[in-house]
Protein backbone atom coordinates (compact mmCIF):
# COMPACT_ATOMS: atom_id res chain seq x y z
CA UNK A 1 0.00 0.00 0.00
CA UNK A 2 1.31 3.38 -0.91
CA UNK A 3 1.84 5.39 2.22
CA UNK A 4 0.53 8.53 0.62
CA UNK A 5 -2.89 6.80 0.23
CA UNK A 6 -3.28 6.28 3.94
CA UNK A 7 -5.67 8.18 6.05
CA UNK A 8 -2.82 9.51 8.15
CA UNK A 9 -1.17 11.02 5.12
CA UNK A 10 -4.33 12.52 3.81
CA UNK A 11 -5.08 14.03 7.20
CA UNK A 12 -1.71 15.70 7.22
CA UNK A 13 -2.33 16.94 3.72
CA UNK A 14 -5.50 18.56 4.81
CA UNK A 15 -3.75 20.15 7.76
CA UNK A 16 -4.93 17.92 10.57
CA UNK A 17 -2.13 17.31 13.00
CA UNK A 18 -1.52 13.82 14.34
CA UNK A 19 -2.08 15.04 17.86
CA UNK A 20 -5.50 16.39 16.98
CA UNK A 21 -6.22 13.09 15.30
CA UNK A 22 -5.21 11.26 18.46
CA UNK A 23 -7.39 13.59 20.43
CA UNK A 24 -10.30 12.79 18.13
CA UNK A 25 -9.68 9.10 18.67
CA UNK A 26 -9.50 9.56 22.44
CA UNK A 27 -12.76 11.47 22.45
CA UNK A 28 -14.45 8.85 20.26
CA UNK A 29 -13.14 5.96 22.37
CA UNK A 30 -14.35 7.66 25.53
CA UNK A 31 -17.70 8.29 23.89
CA UNK A 32 -18.11 4.69 22.88
CA UNK A 33 -16.87 3.48 26.26
CA UNK A 34 -14.12 1.55 24.55
CA UNK A 35 -11.26 0.51 26.83
CA UNK A 36 -9.15 3.64 27.48
CA UNK A 37 -6.12 2.17 25.72
CA UNK A 38 -8.17 1.62 22.59
CA UNK A 39 -7.71 5.25 21.54
CA UNK A 40 -4.05 4.67 20.65
CA UNK A 41 -4.78 1.46 18.82
CA UNK A 42 -7.57 3.24 17.01
CA UNK A 43 -5.36 6.14 16.06
CA UNK A 44 -2.68 3.77 14.89
CA UNK A 45 -5.04 1.68 12.83
CA UNK A 46 -6.79 4.69 11.35
CA UNK A 47 -3.65 6.49 10.35
CA UNK A 48 -2.57 3.49 8.35
CA UNK A 49 -6.00 2.73 6.91
CA UNK A 50 -7.19 3.94 3.56
CA UNK A 51 -9.90 6.49 3.46
CA UNK A 52 -13.20 4.72 3.60
CA UNK A 53 -15.36 5.23 0.57
CA UNK A 54 -18.83 6.27 1.67
CA UNK A 55 -21.93 6.64 -0.45
CA UNK A 56 -24.71 8.48 1.29
CA UNK A 57 -28.24 8.09 -0.05
CA UNK A 58 -31.00 10.40 1.09
CA UNK A 59 -34.50 9.06 0.62
CA UNK A 60 -37.81 10.15 2.10
CA UNK A 61 -36.29 12.46 4.70
CA UNK A 62 -36.00 16.00 5.99
CA UNK A 63 -32.20 16.39 5.93
CA UNK A 64 -32.32 16.84 9.71
CA UNK A 65 -29.87 14.01 10.21
CA UNK A 66 -27.29 15.58 7.92
CA UNK A 67 -27.91 18.92 9.55
CA UNK A 68 -27.38 17.36 12.93
CA UNK A 69 -23.99 16.08 11.87
CA UNK A 70 -22.77 19.05 9.89
CA UNK A 71 -24.14 21.87 11.97
CA UNK A 72 -23.10 20.63 15.34
CA UNK A 73 -21.80 23.19 17.77
CA UNK A 74 -18.45 21.52 17.85
CA UNK A 75 -17.66 21.30 14.18
CA UNK A 76 -14.01 20.49 14.32
CA UNK A 77 -14.23 17.35 16.38
CA UNK A 78 -17.27 15.56 14.96
CA UNK A 79 -16.71 16.82 11.48
CA UNK A 80 -13.29 15.30 11.52
CA UNK A 81 -15.12 12.16 10.51
CA UNK A 82 -15.38 13.72 7.08
CA UNK A 83 -11.64 13.80 6.97
CA UNK A 84 -11.55 10.10 7.50
CA UNK A 85 -14.00 9.14 4.85
CA UNK A 86 -14.22 9.74 1.19
CA UNK A 87 -17.79 10.94 0.90
CA UNK A 88 -18.22 10.04 -2.73
CA UNK A 89 -21.91 10.85 -3.03
CA UNK A 90 -24.09 13.01 -0.82
CA UNK A 91 -26.73 15.05 -2.53
CA UNK A 92 -26.78 17.84 0.00
CA UNK A 93 -23.06 18.24 0.50
CA UNK A 94 -21.55 17.41 -2.88
CA UNK A 95 -20.57 20.14 -5.28
CA UNK A 96 -21.53 18.17 -8.36
CA UNK A 97 -25.09 18.07 -9.54
CA UNK A 98 -27.22 16.42 -12.16
CA UNK A 99 -25.59 13.80 -14.32
CA UNK A 100 -22.16 14.58 -12.94
CA UNK A 101 -23.37 13.72 -9.49
CA UNK A 102 -24.91 10.44 -10.59
CA UNK A 103 -21.75 9.64 -12.47
CA UNK A 104 -19.74 10.15 -9.27
CA UNK A 105 -21.98 7.64 -7.54
CA UNK A 106 -21.55 5.05 -10.27
CA UNK A 107 -17.84 5.72 -10.33
CA UNK A 108 -17.51 5.26 -6.56
CA UNK A 109 -19.61 2.14 -6.67
CA UNK A 110 -17.44 0.61 -9.36
CA UNK A 111 -14.08 1.54 -7.85
CA UNK A 112 -14.93 0.43 -4.32
CA UNK A 113 -17.33 -2.36 -5.15
CA UNK A 114 -17.73 -4.63 -2.17
CA UNK A 115 -15.92 -2.23 0.13
CA UNK A 116 -17.87 0.99 0.32
CA UNK A 117 -20.04 1.90 3.22
CA UNK A 118 -23.59 2.80 2.31
CA UNK A 119 -25.25 5.39 4.53
CA UNK A 120 -28.96 5.90 4.18
CA UNK A 121 -31.14 8.55 5.70
CA UNK A 122 -34.87 8.66 5.12
CA UNK A 123 -37.42 5.91 4.75
CA UNK A 124 -38.20 4.10 1.54
CA UNK A 125 -41.71 4.47 0.13
CA UNK A 126 -42.97 1.24 -1.36
CA UNK A 127 -46.54 2.05 -2.23
CA UNK A 128 -47.49 2.50 -5.88
CA UNK A 129 -44.13 1.30 -7.10
CA UNK A 130 -42.23 3.63 -4.81
CA UNK A 131 -43.27 6.63 -6.87
CA UNK A 132 -43.45 8.95 -3.88
CA UNK A 133 -39.73 9.56 -3.73
CA UNK A 134 -37.38 9.33 -6.69
CA UNK A 135 -33.93 10.65 -7.49
CA UNK A 136 -32.85 11.02 -11.07
CA UNK A 137 -35.99 9.19 -12.12
CA UNK A 138 -35.18 6.14 -10.06
CA UNK A 139 -37.28 5.18 -7.08
CA UNK A 140 -35.60 5.04 -3.70
CA UNK A 141 -36.44 1.37 -3.50
CA UNK A 142 -34.66 0.52 -6.73
CA UNK A 143 -31.72 2.73 -5.87
CA UNK A 144 -31.32 1.06 -2.48
CA UNK A 145 -31.39 -2.41 -4.00
CA UNK A 146 -28.86 -1.33 -6.59
CA UNK A 147 -26.47 0.34 -4.16
CA UNK A 148 -26.76 -2.24 -1.44
CA UNK A 149 -25.31 -4.89 -3.72
CA UNK A 150 -21.78 -3.55 -3.59
CA UNK A 151 -21.83 -2.27 -0.03
CA UNK A 152 -19.65 -3.73 2.69
CA UNK A 153 -22.24 -2.63 5.21
CA UNK A 154 -25.15 -0.27 5.45
CA UNK A 155 -25.68 2.35 8.12
CA UNK A 156 -29.21 3.62 8.48
CA UNK A 157 -28.88 7.08 9.95
CA UNK A 158 -31.98 8.44 11.65
CA UNK A 159 -35.22 6.86 12.71
CA UNK A 160 -36.73 7.03 9.21
CA UNK A 161 -34.18 4.77 7.59
CA UNK A 162 -33.88 2.70 10.76
CA UNK A 163 -37.55 2.05 11.48
CA UNK A 164 -39.61 4.02 9.00
CA UNK A 165 -39.88 7.05 11.26
CA UNK A 166 -42.43 9.76 10.68
CA UNK A 167 -43.26 8.76 7.06
CA UNK A 168 -44.09 5.31 8.44
CA UNK A 169 -46.46 6.79 11.04
CA UNK A 170 -50.09 5.84 10.80
CA UNK A 171 -51.63 5.88 8.18
CA UNK A 172 -48.32 5.66 6.34
CA UNK A 173 -49.61 7.01 3.03
CA UNK A 174 -46.47 6.21 1.07
CA UNK A 175 -45.97 2.72 2.42
CA UNK A 176 -42.69 3.85 3.93
CA UNK A 177 -40.39 1.14 5.29
CA UNK A 178 -36.94 0.98 6.81
CA UNK A 179 -33.71 -0.16 5.17
CA UNK A 180 -33.71 -3.39 7.14
CA UNK A 181 -37.22 -4.13 5.93
CA UNK A 182 -35.80 -4.37 2.43
CA UNK A 183 -32.17 -5.38 2.74
CA UNK A 184 -31.76 -8.77 4.33
CA UNK A 185 -28.40 -9.96 2.98
CA UNK A 186 -26.08 -7.19 4.19
CA UNK A 187 -25.09 -6.08 7.66
CA UNK A 188 -27.31 -3.12 8.52
CA UNK A 189 -26.69 -0.89 11.49
CA UNK A 190 -29.40 1.44 12.68
CA UNK A 191 -28.42 4.77 14.19
CA UNK A 192 -31.88 6.04 15.08
CA UNK A 193 -32.87 9.35 16.54
CA UNK A 194 -34.81 12.23 15.12
CA UNK A 195 -32.12 13.26 14.51
CA UNK A 196 -29.38 11.09 15.98
CA UNK A 197 -26.81 12.73 18.23
CA UNK A 198 -23.94 13.96 15.97
CA UNK A 199 -21.27 12.31 18.10
CA UNK A 200 -23.15 9.05 17.82
CA UNK A 201 -23.12 9.24 14.02
CA UNK A 202 -19.46 10.15 14.04
CA UNK A 203 -18.55 7.55 16.64
CA UNK A 204 -20.20 4.68 14.83
CA UNK A 205 -18.62 5.69 11.53
CA UNK A 206 -15.21 5.97 13.22
CA UNK A 207 -15.69 2.51 14.62
CA UNK A 208 -16.40 1.06 11.19
CA UNK A 209 -13.46 2.85 9.63
CA UNK A 210 -11.17 1.68 12.44
CA UNK A 211 -12.22 -1.91 12.75
CA UNK A 212 -13.66 -2.54 9.31
CA UNK A 213 -16.81 -3.96 10.79
CA UNK A 214 -19.94 -2.80 12.55
CA UNK A 215 -19.94 -2.60 16.34
CA UNK A 216 -22.06 -4.98 18.39
CA UNK A 217 -25.76 -4.35 17.75
CA UNK A 218 -28.82 -4.78 19.92
CA UNK A 219 -31.95 -6.68 18.92
CA UNK A 220 -33.18 -3.88 16.70
CA UNK A 221 -29.88 -3.23 15.02
CA UNK A 222 -28.57 -0.36 17.14
CA UNK A 223 -24.94 -0.13 18.29
CA UNK A 224 -24.98 -1.18 21.92
CA UNK A 225 -22.28 1.31 22.86
CA UNK A 226 -24.74 4.15 22.43
CA UNK A 227 -28.09 2.47 22.82
CA UNK A 228 -27.57 0.07 25.71
CA UNK A 229 -29.19 2.23 28.38
CA UNK A 230 -32.48 4.02 28.53
CA UNK A 231 -32.70 7.76 28.91
CA UNK A 232 -34.41 6.95 32.21
CA UNK A 233 -31.47 4.83 33.41
CA UNK A 234 -29.08 7.72 32.92
CA UNK A 235 -31.43 10.58 33.68
CA UNK A 236 -30.31 13.02 36.36
CA UNK A 237 -33.96 13.23 37.46
CA UNK A 238 -34.09 9.51 38.13
CA UNK A 239 -33.82 9.83 41.95
CA UNK A 240 -37.14 11.70 41.92
CA UNK A 241 -38.74 8.86 40.02
CA UNK A 242 -37.46 6.45 42.62
CA UNK A 243 -38.87 8.61 45.38
CA UNK A 244 -42.20 8.94 43.60
CA UNK A 245 -41.87 12.71 43.13
CA UNK A 246 -43.44 13.81 39.87
CA UNK A 247 -44.13 17.11 38.16
CA UNK A 248 -47.85 17.20 37.42
CA UNK A 249 -47.78 20.15 35.03
CA UNK A 250 -45.02 21.97 33.22
CA UNK A 251 -45.14 24.91 35.58
CA UNK A 252 -45.92 23.50 38.98
CA UNK A 253 -43.68 23.36 42.03
CA UNK A 254 -42.50 19.89 41.04
CA UNK A 255 -41.48 21.07 37.57
CA UNK A 256 -39.59 23.99 39.11
CA UNK A 257 -37.84 21.62 41.45
CA UNK A 258 -36.76 19.45 38.56
CA UNK A 259 -38.87 16.44 39.52
CA UNK A 260 -39.44 13.47 37.27
CA UNK A 261 -41.50 14.08 34.11
CA UNK A 262 -43.02 10.57 33.97
CA UNK A 263 -46.52 11.85 34.57
CA UNK A 264 -46.11 14.40 31.79
CA UNK A 265 -45.58 11.61 29.33
CA UNK A 266 -41.78 11.25 29.35
CA UNK A 267 -40.82 8.19 27.28
CA UNK A 268 -37.38 7.99 28.91
CA UNK A 269 -37.99 4.60 30.52
CA UNK A 270 -38.57 2.92 27.18
CA UNK A 271 -36.18 4.92 25.04
CA UNK A 272 -32.68 3.69 24.38
CA UNK A 273 -30.33 6.48 23.44
CA UNK A 274 -27.35 8.41 24.76
CA UNK A 275 -29.00 11.83 25.14
CA UNK A 276 -28.75 11.79 28.93
CA UNK A 277 -24.99 11.21 28.86
CA UNK A 278 -23.69 12.81 25.68
CA UNK A 279 -26.41 15.45 25.54
CA UNK A 280 -26.95 17.93 22.73
CA UNK A 281 -25.42 21.13 21.41
CA UNK A 282 -21.98 20.20 22.55
CA UNK A 283 -23.08 18.75 25.86
CA UNK A 284 -25.21 21.74 26.87
CA UNK A 285 -28.47 20.03 27.64
CA UNK A 286 -31.00 17.48 26.52
CA UNK A 287 -34.81 17.60 26.38
CA UNK A 288 -35.45 16.45 29.94
CA UNK A 289 -32.88 18.86 31.31
CA UNK A 290 -34.73 21.58 29.39
CA UNK A 291 -37.93 20.60 31.17
CA UNK A 292 -39.67 18.47 28.56
CA UNK A 293 -40.16 14.75 28.62
CA UNK A 294 -38.40 12.45 26.18
CA UNK A 295 -40.43 11.78 23.01
CA UNK A 296 -38.77 8.44 22.43
CA UNK A 297 -37.57 9.45 18.96
CA UNK A 298 -34.98 6.70 18.68
CA UNK A 299 -37.61 3.99 19.12
CA UNK A 300 -39.65 2.33 16.40
CA UNK A 301 -43.16 3.75 16.02
CA UNK A 302 -42.47 6.63 18.37
CA UNK A 303 -44.93 8.72 16.44
CA UNK A 304 -47.75 6.28 17.02
CA UNK A 305 -47.33 5.76 20.75
CA UNK A 306 -50.24 7.99 21.66
CA UNK A 307 -49.74 11.57 22.69
CA UNK A 308 -46.26 12.69 23.68
CA UNK A 309 -47.90 13.77 26.91
CA UNK A 310 -49.61 10.45 27.64
CA UNK A 311 -47.86 8.68 30.55
CA UNK A 312 -46.32 5.33 29.77
CA UNK A 313 -48.43 3.41 32.24
CA UNK A 314 -51.70 4.40 30.62
CA UNK A 315 -53.57 2.64 27.86
CA UNK A 316 -52.67 3.92 24.42
CA UNK A 317 -56.20 4.66 23.46
CA UNK A 318 -59.39 5.00 25.40
CA UNK A 319 -61.59 2.80 23.28
CA UNK A 320 -64.59 3.50 25.44
CA UNK A 321 -66.98 2.66 22.62
CA UNK A 322 -65.63 -0.89 22.34
CA UNK A 323 -65.72 -1.33 26.10
CA UNK A 324 -69.22 0.14 26.27
CA UNK A 325 -70.32 -2.22 23.52
CA UNK A 326 -68.84 -5.08 25.55
CA UNK A 327 -70.79 -3.93 28.59
CA UNK A 328 -74.05 -3.83 26.65
CA UNK A 329 -73.24 -7.22 25.18
CA UNK A 330 -72.67 -8.53 28.68
CA UNK A 331 -76.03 -7.25 29.83
CA UNK A 332 -77.66 -8.90 26.83
CA UNK A 333 -75.85 -12.17 27.48
CA UNK A 334 -76.86 -12.01 31.15
CA UNK A 335 -80.49 -11.43 30.26
CA UNK A 336 -80.42 -14.34 27.81
CA UNK A 337 -78.67 -16.63 30.29
CA UNK A 338 -81.10 -15.79 33.10
CA UNK A 339 -84.02 -16.10 30.70
CA UNK A 340 -82.91 -19.54 29.58
CA UNK A 341 -82.47 -20.68 33.18
CA UNK A 342 -85.90 -19.39 34.13
CA UNK A 343 -87.49 -21.03 31.12
CA UNK A 344 -85.76 -24.28 31.98
CA UNK A 345 -87.03 -24.01 35.57
CA UNK A 346 -90.58 -23.23 34.52
CA UNK A 347 -90.43 -26.20 32.18
CA UNK A 348 -89.40 -28.47 35.05
CA UNK A 349 -92.17 -27.03 37.20
CA UNK A 350 -94.78 -27.80 34.54
CA UNK A 351 -93.47 -31.33 34.00
CA UNK A 352 -94.25 -32.13 37.56
Amino acid at each position, binding site marked *: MNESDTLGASLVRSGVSRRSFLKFCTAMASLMALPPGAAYAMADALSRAQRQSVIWLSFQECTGCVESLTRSFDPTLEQMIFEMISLDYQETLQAASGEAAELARVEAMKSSYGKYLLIVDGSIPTKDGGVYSTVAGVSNYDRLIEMAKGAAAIVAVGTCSSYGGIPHANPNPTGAVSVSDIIKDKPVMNVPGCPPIPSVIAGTLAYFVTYGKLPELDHIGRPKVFYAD*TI*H*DRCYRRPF*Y*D*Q*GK*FAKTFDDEGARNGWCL*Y*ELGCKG*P*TTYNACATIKWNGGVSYPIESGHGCLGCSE*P*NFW*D*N*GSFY*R*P*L*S*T*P*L*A*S*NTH*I*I*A*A*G*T*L*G*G*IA*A*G*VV*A*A*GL*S*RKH*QTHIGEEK
Partner: protein
Amino acid sequence: MDLLQFARGPALTWAATVFMFGITWRLVGILLLKRSPDFSEARNATSWLGAVKLIITRSWPRREFRQRTLFAQSLGYIFHVGLVIILFGFAPHILFFKALTGLGWPNLPSAFIQLTSGITLAALIVVLVRRLSHPVLRLLSNFDDYFSWLVTFTPVATGMLAVAHFGARYETLLAIHLLSVALLLVWFPFGKLMHSALIFISRGTTGALFERKGASI
Protein backbone atom coordinates in the same frame (compact mmCIF):
# COMPACT_ATOMS: atom_id res chain seq x y z
CA MET B 1 -46.43 -3.01 16.52
CA ASP B 2 -44.09 -3.94 19.34
CA LEU B 3 -45.03 -5.84 22.46
CA LEU B 4 -45.51 -2.75 24.61
CA GLN B 5 -47.73 -1.12 22.02
CA PHE B 6 -49.75 -4.29 21.81
CA ALA B 7 -50.02 -4.43 25.60
CA ARG B 8 -50.96 -0.78 25.99
CA GLY B 9 -53.24 -0.78 23.01
CA PRO B 10 -55.34 -3.72 21.79
CA ALA B 11 -54.53 -6.02 24.70
CA LEU B 12 -55.81 -3.59 27.31
CA THR B 13 -58.78 -2.51 25.22
CA TRP B 14 -59.94 -6.04 24.60
CA ALA B 15 -59.17 -7.18 28.09
CA ALA B 16 -61.24 -4.30 29.47
CA THR B 17 -64.01 -5.16 27.03
CA VAL B 18 -64.03 -8.82 28.05
CA PHE B 19 -63.87 -7.67 31.67
CA MET B 20 -66.95 -5.49 31.36
CA PHE B 21 -68.73 -8.00 29.14
CA GLY B 22 -68.11 -10.83 31.58
CA ILE B 23 -68.93 -8.86 34.71
CA THR B 24 -72.24 -7.60 33.41
CA TRP B 25 -73.08 -10.99 31.92
CA ARG B 26 -72.43 -12.72 35.19
CA LEU B 27 -74.11 -10.18 37.47
CA VAL B 28 -77.17 -9.73 35.27
CA GLY B 29 -77.36 -13.50 34.78
CA ILE B 30 -77.47 -14.00 38.53
CA LEU B 31 -79.64 -11.09 39.55
CA LEU B 32 -82.33 -11.72 36.95
CA LEU B 33 -82.96 -15.25 38.13
CA LYS B 34 -86.34 -15.76 39.77
CA ARG B 35 -86.96 -14.26 43.14
CA SER B 36 -89.87 -15.39 45.27
CA PRO B 37 -91.75 -12.89 47.40
CA ASP B 38 -91.62 -13.42 51.16
CA PHE B 39 -95.09 -13.31 52.73
CA SER B 40 -93.98 -14.13 56.25
CA GLU B 41 -94.55 -11.45 58.87
CA ALA B 42 -91.26 -9.61 59.24
CA ARG B 43 -89.76 -9.31 62.70
CA ASN B 44 -87.83 -6.22 61.57
CA ALA B 45 -89.21 -4.14 58.74
CA THR B 46 -85.94 -2.37 57.92
CA SER B 47 -84.19 -5.32 56.38
CA TRP B 48 -81.82 -3.12 54.36
CA LEU B 49 -80.18 -2.14 57.64
CA GLY B 50 -79.26 -5.76 58.10
CA ALA B 51 -77.67 -5.77 54.66
CA VAL B 52 -75.53 -2.77 55.56
CA LYS B 53 -74.74 -4.24 58.95
CA LEU B 54 -73.60 -7.59 57.61
CA ILE B 55 -71.61 -6.02 54.79
CA ILE B 56 -69.69 -4.07 57.41
CA THR B 57 -69.47 -6.45 60.34
CA ARG B 58 -68.56 -9.58 58.40
CA SER B 59 -65.29 -7.87 57.55
CA TRP B 60 -63.86 -9.25 60.74
CA PRO B 61 -64.65 -12.50 62.51
CA ARG B 62 -66.96 -12.76 65.49
CA ARG B 63 -65.19 -13.19 68.79
CA GLU B 64 -66.25 -16.84 68.90
CA PHE B 65 -64.51 -17.65 65.61
CA ARG B 66 -61.48 -15.48 66.10
CA GLN B 67 -59.16 -18.08 67.52
CA ARG B 68 -59.71 -20.62 64.75
CA THR B 69 -59.59 -18.15 61.88
CA LEU B 70 -57.04 -15.61 63.07
CA PHE B 71 -54.26 -16.79 60.78
CA ALA B 72 -56.39 -17.09 57.67
CA GLN B 73 -58.08 -13.75 58.32
CA SER B 74 -54.80 -11.94 58.95
CA LEU B 75 -53.26 -13.42 55.85
CA GLY B 76 -56.25 -12.40 53.80
CA TYR B 77 -56.11 -8.90 55.19
CA ILE B 78 -52.39 -8.53 54.54
CA PHE B 79 -52.55 -9.34 50.86
CA HIS B 80 -55.84 -7.60 50.24
CA VAL B 81 -54.68 -4.39 51.89
CA GLY B 82 -51.37 -4.78 50.09
CA LEU B 83 -53.11 -5.10 46.75
CA VAL B 84 -55.22 -2.03 47.43
CA ILE B 85 -52.18 0.02 48.41
CA ILE B 86 -50.28 -1.06 45.33
CA LEU B 87 -53.22 -0.64 42.99
CA PHE B 88 -54.31 2.77 44.22
CA GLY B 89 -51.16 4.21 45.76
CA PHE B 90 -48.55 3.77 43.05
CA ALA B 91 -48.13 6.82 40.83
CA PRO B 92 -48.15 5.03 37.43
CA HIS B 93 -51.31 3.19 38.48
CA ILE B 94 -52.99 6.44 39.45
CA LEU B 95 -52.09 7.76 36.00
CA PHE B 96 -53.71 4.67 34.53
CA PHE B 97 -56.94 5.34 36.39
CA LYS B 98 -56.73 9.01 35.59
CA ALA B 99 -56.45 8.21 31.90
CA LEU B 100 -59.54 6.02 32.18
CA THR B 101 -61.70 8.05 34.53
CA GLY B 102 -60.18 11.50 34.75
CA LEU B 103 -59.83 11.12 38.49
CA GLY B 104 -56.45 11.47 40.14
CA TRP B 105 -55.22 11.47 43.70
CA PRO B 106 -51.84 11.84 45.47
CA ASN B 107 -49.50 8.90 45.22
CA LEU B 108 -47.51 7.12 47.92
CA PRO B 109 -43.69 7.04 47.93
CA SER B 110 -42.35 4.42 45.54
CA ALA B 111 -40.17 2.83 48.20
CA PHE B 112 -43.24 2.22 50.34
CA ILE B 113 -45.01 0.64 47.37
CA GLN B 114 -42.05 -1.65 46.77
CA LEU B 115 -42.04 -2.70 50.41
CA THR B 116 -45.77 -3.32 50.29
CA SER B 117 -45.36 -5.33 47.11
CA GLY B 118 -42.75 -7.47 48.79
CA ILE B 119 -45.00 -8.15 51.75
CA THR B 120 -47.96 -8.82 49.47
CA LEU B 121 -45.98 -11.28 47.37
CA ALA B 122 -44.79 -13.07 50.50
CA ALA B 123 -48.35 -13.23 51.82
CA LEU B 124 -49.59 -14.57 48.48
CA ILE B 125 -46.97 -17.28 48.56
CA VAL B 126 -48.05 -18.25 52.07
CA VAL B 127 -51.64 -18.27 50.79
CA LEU B 128 -50.66 -20.73 48.07
CA VAL B 129 -48.64 -22.93 50.40
CA ARG B 130 -51.56 -22.98 52.81
CA ARG B 131 -53.98 -23.89 50.03
CA LEU B 132 -51.71 -26.73 48.98
CA SER B 133 -51.13 -28.04 52.46
CA HIS B 134 -54.31 -27.46 54.47
CA PRO B 135 -56.55 -30.54 54.11
CA VAL B 136 -59.76 -28.53 53.84
CA LEU B 137 -58.39 -26.08 51.30
CA ARG B 138 -56.75 -28.81 49.26
CA LEU B 139 -60.07 -30.61 49.07
CA LEU B 140 -62.03 -27.51 48.09
CA SER B 141 -59.54 -26.09 45.61
CA ASN B 142 -60.01 -26.36 41.89
CA PHE B 143 -58.51 -24.82 38.76
CA ASP B 144 -60.22 -21.51 39.49
CA ASP B 145 -58.49 -21.17 42.84
CA TYR B 146 -55.01 -21.80 41.49
CA PHE B 147 -55.45 -19.83 38.30
CA SER B 148 -56.97 -16.88 40.12
CA TRP B 149 -54.01 -16.98 42.46
CA LEU B 150 -51.66 -16.98 39.51
CA VAL B 151 -53.29 -14.04 37.74
CA THR B 152 -53.20 -12.09 41.00
CA PHE B 153 -49.62 -12.98 41.79
CA THR B 154 -48.22 -12.30 38.32
CA PRO B 155 -49.07 -8.60 38.02
CA VAL B 156 -47.58 -7.91 41.45
CA ALA B 157 -44.41 -9.85 40.62
CA THR B 158 -43.99 -8.42 37.12
CA GLY B 159 -44.81 -4.94 38.41
CA MET B 160 -42.05 -5.20 40.97
CA LEU B 161 -39.60 -6.37 38.32
CA ALA B 162 -40.62 -3.55 36.00
CA VAL B 163 -40.14 -0.91 38.66
CA ALA B 164 -36.77 -2.40 39.58
CA HIS B 165 -35.82 -2.77 35.89
CA PHE B 166 -34.80 -6.28 36.75
CA GLY B 167 -34.63 -9.31 34.49
CA ALA B 168 -35.29 -7.75 31.10
CA ARG B 169 -35.55 -4.43 29.32
CA TYR B 170 -37.99 -2.02 30.88
CA GLU B 171 -40.35 -1.89 27.91
CA THR B 172 -40.50 -5.68 27.88
CA LEU B 173 -41.13 -5.82 31.62
CA LEU B 174 -43.76 -3.12 31.37
CA ALA B 175 -45.40 -4.94 28.47
CA ILE B 176 -45.40 -8.22 30.38
CA HIS B 177 -46.80 -6.44 33.40
CA LEU B 178 -49.59 -4.91 31.33
CA LEU B 179 -50.27 -8.23 29.61
CA SER B 180 -50.49 -9.93 33.00
CA VAL B 181 -53.01 -7.27 34.00
CA ALA B 182 -54.89 -7.94 30.77
CA LEU B 183 -54.96 -11.63 31.67
CA LEU B 184 -56.25 -10.72 35.11
CA LEU B 185 -58.99 -8.60 33.58
CA VAL B 186 -59.98 -11.32 31.15
CA TRP B 187 -60.15 -13.96 33.85
CA PHE B 188 -61.72 -11.73 36.46
CA PRO B 189 -65.41 -12.11 35.54
CA PHE B 190 -65.23 -15.85 35.04
CA GLY B 191 -63.53 -16.97 38.21
CA LYS B 192 -63.56 -16.36 41.92
CA LEU B 193 -62.04 -12.90 41.56
CA MET B 194 -65.62 -11.77 41.03
CA HIS B 195 -65.96 -12.04 44.78
CA SER B 196 -64.82 -8.43 44.93
CA ALA B 197 -68.24 -7.52 43.55
CA LEU B 198 -70.25 -10.50 44.74
CA ILE B 199 -69.17 -10.02 48.34
CA PHE B 200 -71.51 -7.05 48.63
CA ILE B 201 -74.40 -8.79 46.96
CA SER B 202 -73.96 -12.01 48.88
CA ARG B 203 -73.46 -10.38 52.27
CA GLY B 204 -76.24 -7.92 51.57
CA THR B 205 -78.65 -10.70 50.60
CA THR B 206 -78.05 -12.67 53.78
CA GLY B 207 -78.03 -9.53 55.87
CA ALA B 208 -81.40 -8.41 54.54
CA LEU B 209 -83.02 -11.85 54.76
CA PHE B 210 -81.73 -12.47 58.26
CA GLU B 211 -82.51 -9.01 59.60
CA ARG B 212 -86.06 -9.56 58.46
CA LYS B 213 -86.24 -12.62 60.71
CA GLY B 214 -84.17 -11.12 63.49
CA ALA B 215 -81.77 -13.99 62.98
CA SER B 216 -78.11 -13.75 63.89
CA ILE B 217 -75.96 -11.94 61.37
